[in-house]
């Protein structure tokens, strides 16, 4: 049963790692694009938020799975 807790930790850890990497890459590109073309900052920001959100939702999935595993361990 305690293995489920280990699994929960691994799930949220790797999930957050992947989502964080994705958001980091996307965010750096957004900053680059804004620097290259400051006039389009608004459009770039909106697009950036949308793209970052898709990476984030994968992290949220791993949170949910970790939570389900934690409920199983109890």
């Amino acid at each position, binding site marked *: 049963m305690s293995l489920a807790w280990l699994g929960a930790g691994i799930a949220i850890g790797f999930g957050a790692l992947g989502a964080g990497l994705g958001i980091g890459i996307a965010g750096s590109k957004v900053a680059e694009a804004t620097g290259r073309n400051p006039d389009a900052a608004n459009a770039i920001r909106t*697009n950036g938020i949308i793209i970052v959100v898709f990476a984030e939702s994968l992290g949220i999935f791993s949170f949910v799975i970790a939570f389900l595993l934690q409920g199983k361990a109890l």
Partner: protein
Amino acid sequence: MRQVIGIVLLLNAVAVIGAALTGNLPNWPPTQADIHVAEQAGTPLIHLGGDEHPSEGGVISIWNDISISNSIFTAWLVMAALTVLGFLAGRAVSEVPGRLQGFIEVIVQGLVDFMKDAGGPQVVRYLPLFGTLFLFALASNWLGITPLVGQIELLHTPTADYHTNLGLALTGFVWYQAAGIRQNGLGYFTRWVNFPAFKEGPLVGAVMLIFVGPIEFFSELFRILTLTLRLWGNIWGGEIVLAVLSALLFVPSFVLPFLFLELFIGFIQAFVFAFLVLLYIILALESHGGEEHEALPEASHAARLEAAHAV
């Protein structure tokens, strides 16, 4: 600014020293019992029908329970507040707006401008859906970081309960499918069953029918799932973070930076929820059926729409 920080730190010192003198210091390190995490979903207040307890199933237990939960009650409070605000602002609309009317006008104008930016003038008719989703989610999210909500039995943040979010997501889902069917007629269904692609050749048609169609179909389901879980995970996770950190940090106001973070996240998530529903509406309106208006005026707009196909 410096004085404000000084006063806050002084109040903290007073609180900690006072707690130490009266013997009310919290446990440190905190145990599980010291961390008051809000429930993942609302708890029933008034039971109307169905089972009293969840069935002992697998990991996900299905609970056939019809009752008024505390998150529904809080959602009603939010709705009442928004309705009263709208009623007061719209009661006496004048050419020269008063303070309240001016405030509401700024919000609505901002939303309309944003919608025009994203999808052109033809999507402004979906302002009631977009604005309602945004304002409801925003009010609920910000309710989540106010004191007492989520801590007493009567109040539970509506968006920290996935049932509410599923309801919002299903509303958006039905609305954008209806919008697509209304705009494109039967051609809308070529999203999933793309028979016209056989004109390009049998191989293209088969690939579209066997691979692309099912992927599109499941992406519809995943849209509901992601909309629901993204909002719920962010808001409920934020509540957990606040509860854990305020138990861990000992000094009351050290948690203030995280409170501002949650304020920001609440705004972003409400915005993202409403904007994704709007984006799905735009995608449904410009579905595969409408190939005749390939030459859209917004060229950069197409790139944004492509990105939305990712999920």
